[in-house]
């Protein structure tokens, strides 16, 4: 039972980081980034390449720091190339799905071409095991469980208190009014994508330290994040975070008690049930 909860909390932390990035971009720009899973993969590869002796060999912390800076840039470049040209066009929502899918296809194959398909892993930040309330877990797991809420709180504070965070929220609520008030919408879009990519990169580094790094490592977490944002309602940060933990705990419980193969069925059934009752997600705003 304890190990099930630990597994659920670890995945929940990772899903929350991924899904809140998606939700943030959706709220501010009204587009959905299908390349988000690939951003996660790039974050993990950047950290690996800088830290591992097979790459630059500068050690883990240099790797993580480099990865974070790289992600801010990657998010902005992705926005400039794959999203910005279509903002304001009639079918932007659908077109951006397509351009970001194409971007994902490009970057996943670029990673495959550059690094090969061989499994890689990041060093662990902390090693050894910890026992809490009779449940033994890897220290790395505990680190993820503690770090994710801290990061999500800082995200919430950033959105509530900082100038750029307030700008993101203002645009999400009413972009025309925000523009009239002198908020630099264009610059804020870049920042939104940068922050979103940063969150994905952190999730990538966490997954890289717990499991493996491969060019396709982002696909499964992205699909779970889809379920999370549908469940929690896009654009609602608290909804997204709660949904991430709920989905992850359901997933962990059902993998343990029902079997790993039936887990997608269980998740999907829960999703359908939620949608029948609340079509805008668990905590989602009612649509316009």
């Amino acid at each position, binding site marked *: 039972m304890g190990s099930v909860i630990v597994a659920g909390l670890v995945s929940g932390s990772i899903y929350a980081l991924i899904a809140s990035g998606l939700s943030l971009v*959706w709220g501010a720009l009204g587009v*959905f980034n299908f390349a988000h899973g690939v951003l996660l993969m790039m974050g993990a590869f950047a950290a690996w390449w800088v830290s591992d002796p097979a790459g630059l060999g500068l050690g883990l912390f240099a790797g993580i720091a480099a990865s974070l800076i790289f992600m801010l840039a990657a998010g902005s470049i992705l926005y400039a*190339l*794959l999203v910005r*040209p*279509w903002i304001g*066009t009639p*079918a932007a*929502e*659908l*077109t951006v*799905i*397509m*351009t970001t*899918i*194409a*971007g994902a*296809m*490009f970057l996943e*194959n*670029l990673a*495959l*071409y550059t690094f090969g398909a061989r499994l890689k892993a990041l060093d662990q930040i902390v090693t050894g095991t910890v026992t809490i309330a009779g449940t033994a877990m890897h220290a790395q797991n505990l680190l993820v469980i503690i770090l994710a809420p801290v990061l999500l709180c800082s995200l919430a504070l950033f959105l509530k208190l900082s100038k750029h965070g307030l700008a993101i929220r203002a645009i999400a609520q009413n972009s025309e009014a925000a523009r009239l008030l002198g908020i630099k919408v264009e610059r804020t879009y870049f920042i939104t994508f940068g922050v979103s990519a940063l969150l994905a990169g952190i999730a990538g580094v966490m997954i890289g330290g717990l499991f493996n790094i491969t060019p396709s490592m982002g*696909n499964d977490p992205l*699909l779970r994040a*889809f*379920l999370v*944002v*549908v469940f929690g309602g*896009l654009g609602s940060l608290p909804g997204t975070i709660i949904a991430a933990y709920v989905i992850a705990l359901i997933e962990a419980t059902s993998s343990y008690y029902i079997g790993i*193969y*039936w*887990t*997608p*069925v269980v998740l*999907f059934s829960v*999703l*359908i049930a939620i*949608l*029948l009752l609340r*079509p805008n*997600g668990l905590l989602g705003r009612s*649509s316009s």
Partner: protein
Amino acid sequence: MTPARNKRIEIGLWIAAIAVALVLPQMLGTGVWRNLAVLAILFAVVASNWDLTLGYAGIFNFAHVAFFGIAGYVSAIATIHLGVPIWLDVGLAVVVVGALAALTAVLALRLRGIYVALVTFAFVQLCVALIISQKALTGGAVGLVGVPDLELFGFRLGSDGRSYFYLAEAVLLASTFFLRRLVRSDFGLSLVALRDNEHYAISRGISATRQRVLAMVASSLFPAVAGSIYAHYLIVASPDIFSFSLTTLILSMTLLGGTSTIFGPILAAIVLTVVTEQLASFGVIRFMIIAVLIVLTLRFLPGGIWSFGERIAAWRSRAQTQETTS
């Protein structure tokens, strides 16, 4: 152009298409090209039917490749495990997929826009997970091998490479005829009305949910036929069909060809299948090239390849009217 002249041109095009369909299998001699053509044509069926929901009805439906794949599995399971006679299994696949499309539509259409895309995307992944887990029934990750060859009056289609070519062409022609009739019918117009101004369309007495569910079902029928034939042709129903890359490929056919045209996705399906094959020696780089092509097309030719032809036609007709008036 007058409607009567348009009609004549259209009938002429249909006759030309049928003539090409009759001659082409005789001309493409080698097995490689023939195989490629069969795949391109079957993908064209899926891409053009996808256009009905994605383009005309404006539903962010990402499940069409799943309909294609599921039909293959229905055929495989029916013929291998249940002993359903061939051809009947194709009909069964259509019925099952049609029912599934209706169910998906009823559930997904409670949502709007992007949520439909997410749920249908997740639905495809659910299919993969179920198929891989039910090894006894579906053959797991390997696929269900041994789908029997189709037969017509004792003639085994697999014994001559041209027969599946003809069959695929027949399906594409029938599907295209069906789609063109459908989009110009009152039903098709009501879908476009719902897409362009939902509130106004509803206020004029169009039932949004009913029309959209019907659109999903209508657009799933021919992909089901194609999926079933695909399984018979390759002798296997494989989970690879549900892969992200095939979904992306067929989706890009629909979008690059030009949505709300029906003909555009067919053209793009043929072009993309050939291009993908020509780039095969580039390995993974070919996917990067295709990705760049997709983004560039969406950037500089937002209406897709088909709009390029329409643009030229419009330019020429303008030049003509100028000539006659001057």
